[in-house]
């Protein structure tokens, strides 16, 4: 039981770690790609959307990829 839960918790942390790397790239380049209203926004705004980007990175990644393909 403990081994299984340790694995689940480690996977959870791994997911968040990937999300952190993604979120850094996203607030640097990706946000402007998927939503023009983020152009010329402050770094404070980008910091505010970062926790959500860490949590929902697979969804944002798919949107970013889809947008890049269309351009």
């Amino acid at each position, binding site marked *: 039981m403990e081994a299984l839960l340790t694995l689940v918790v480690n996977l959870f942390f791994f997911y968040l770690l990937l999300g952190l790397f993604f979120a850094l790239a996203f607030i640097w380049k990706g946000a402007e790609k998927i939503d023009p*209203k983020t152009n*010329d*926004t402050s770094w404070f705004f980008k910091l*505010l959307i970062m926790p959500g980007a860490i949590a929902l990175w697979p969804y944002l990644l798919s949107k970013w990829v889809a947008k890049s393909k269309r351009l």
Partner: protein
Amino acid sequence: MSVNYAPILWNRQKKRYDRIMLGLITLYLILFAAFQLLFRPEISPETLIIRATATLAFLMLHLILMIGPLCRLDRRFLPLLYNRRHLGVTMFLIALVHAAFSIIQFHALGDVNPLVSVFTSNINYQSISQFPFQVLGFFALLILFLMAATSHDFWLDNLSPRIWKSLHMMVYFAYALLVMHVLLGVLQQEGYPAGFIFLGIGMVAVSSLHLAAAIKGKRQEERPEGTTADTFVPVCRVDEILENRAKVVIIRQENIAIFKYDGKLSAINNVCKHQNGPLGEGKIVDGCITCPWHGYQYLPENGQSPPPFTEKVATYDVKVMDGKVYVNPKPYPEGTTRPAAVIGV
């Protein structure tokens, strides 16, 4: 409502709202600490912080859940709604402090990963009285985190209003988890009868307000019967609509707000494009229909947000005959200009 995203949408009223909120939070924490130190002087600082933040966050969650139905029951509560988002994010941050101190106090001193310890230190999952209540709090906090993290309009636009709304409706699931967290954990283990009473009052208040608002909403949804030859449906008398306000009707699944202004009447769809707010509960400000929830605006004759904004809602034909208002429930495409019905002609 802006062309580019602002980090935080503050205006004079919202700043006042936040100042009052922070003042009341500080007052609560001071009173709670004073009360605890008076009656339980042996309490440790960590336990004091855990209890103060737990009760404060839970109290704030009750308030947040009650604001919506209170505003539906009485417009005078609307100012509480204008900045509910900041109240929600603040409540999450307070709950996070509670969780962090709880994990440090109860799970960080062993050789097991503290988060793993939350799930494994008590494995009486089959027992009701000994159920590991902290797990329930963890999942509730996860939901509250998702809600706080996606509270900015950026997420509303990019997740789509339907997904965003569904995500934020999970607050009721989080509330249920927290009720169980409190019931099973704190109250049962400590034998604290006053806690049961407070929890009961809170649950009854939240559920009865939602029920009362739902009943009132059902009564207000008028569905006029009978149509004239050109499919216009009688709604009400002209003098039943206040100046710069609206009458809301639902006809054939169309949710319509008919606004009276400058001797004219115009009808638009009642659902705001921002967060599905009830436009018909708002009023006309500076010539624009203004959503009572977050101030999104639409021109009454075409349902379009004034430039440079791009939101649009459907419009409907309205006419006045013998002092009565008639509306045709067939919607025009969003943003279509329709002539206003002139009162008295």
